[in-house]
């Protein structure tokens, strides 16, 4: 037993990991991992899809353990391209899967509601979605290309990760507002079941985005800062 035995390691069976924390199921599509992994270890599963098992396990630990914080060696080992690919996949996963599902559910839930309520809810969620799109687009079009350029030893001028660090805005206000709207203010009509399902999805998305931000702040930024130092700012 190593001193870190309470956290996951890549030698563990992937099936066991899921049994220990079912939330990890939500990570699989972002790594291109499909269910049906028999008794293969996390490392074997990752190898089959060309994913760094070190990165996969680190992210599993971030998702599963509140008290887990990646050690310096773990951050240093992380391959920047793999991390960026994961973050990009996460972005499209959030937009196309999680957020889209909530939007679909909202339409069904409010179908019999007052027309004004439907309209304003729809508008609210569109605004939220656009905010998320803008946030992700900025990262993918400005921040990630910059990181890739310093990753290959080219220092693009005029940008530093510090700028990103300072402008890493939060996009969670509206989600939190939406929770209160459904918990406290939306009329107590007959759509209770649908609303409960939506709330579960919002809470889950919120937690997921919190972990996503954690990865960007605690892994991505330190990693890039190290690269910036290596190539002499």
């Amino acid at each position, binding site marked *: 037993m190593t001193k870190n035995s309470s956290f996951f390691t890549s030698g563990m069976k992937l099936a066991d990991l899921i049994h220990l924390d079912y939330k990890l199921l939500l990570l699989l599509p972002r790594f291109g991992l499909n269910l049906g992994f028999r008794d293969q270890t996390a490392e074997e599963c990752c190898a089959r899809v060309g994913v760094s098992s070190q990165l996969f396990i680190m992210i599993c630990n971030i998702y599963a353990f509140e008290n887990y914080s990646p050690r310096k060696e773990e951050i240093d080992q992380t391959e920047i391209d793999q991390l960026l690919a994961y973050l990009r996949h996460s972005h499209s996963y959030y937009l196309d899967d999680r957020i889209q599902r909530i939007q679909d559910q909202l339409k069904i839930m409010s179908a019999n509601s007052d027309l004004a309520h439907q309209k304003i809810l729809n508008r609210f969620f569109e*605004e939220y979605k656009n905010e998320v799109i803008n946030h992700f687009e900025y990262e993918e079009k400005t921040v990630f290309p910059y990181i890739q350029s310093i990753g290959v030893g080219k220092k693009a001028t005029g940008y530093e990760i510090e700028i990103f660090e300072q402008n890493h805005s939060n996009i969670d206000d509206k989600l939190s507002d939406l929770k*209160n709207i459904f918990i406290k203010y939306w009329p107590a009509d007959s759509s209770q079941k649908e609303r409960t399902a939506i709330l579960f999805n919002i809470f889950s998305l919120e937690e997921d985005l919190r972990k996503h931000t954690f990865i960007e702040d605690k892994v991505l930024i330190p990693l890039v800062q190290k690269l910036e130092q290596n190539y002499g700012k």
Partner: protein
Amino acid sequence: MVSRKHYRIVLIEPSAIITAGIQELIKGERELEVVAVFADCCHSTEHINDLRPDLIILNPLIVDFKYRHCVEDLFLGNVPLVALVYQYVEPETLRHYRAVIDIEDERAKIVRKLLQVMETVTPRQDVPEGNELSEREKEILVSVAKGMINKEIAEQHHISIHTVISHRKNISRKTGIKSVAGLTVFAILNNLLDINDVE
């Protein structure tokens, strides 16, 4: 008549000698209690509002000139204001105060003035407590929901930007809703605003 016979007073005055003096004078009165003393008001209104005082004794001259004509808006819940005066103060400024205490007033007169003010005040129960929005907050909320910026809201309601921000903080705290878009939904759901006003 007011049934509750205990009034929480906030004293705002920069002079230590005068604040100590006022506190000493009031000490013997069971109905009156100075709960906090501040040297200025513009930087601590939020803190003062959190204390939910029944009465504020304030030196009108320490209020920034641009707020003097709307000093009551600095504080939430229609708290009655009593001016504490020891220099010349324009009558126009004093109109915003329920009573004026002069530095030369004797003790009994000061206490009487304070109690008189409290007797004319509608009991605090009329002011919505807890998470219920006050009428003023509802008005501000509607302006926010319509997409107005703080400066526009301040002009429309004749209050300072500082007060607008303070109201907005309270609205968000009470409703649990932070974003403008979220507040718009709230306003529509509560019939404070018509959908056509935001389209």
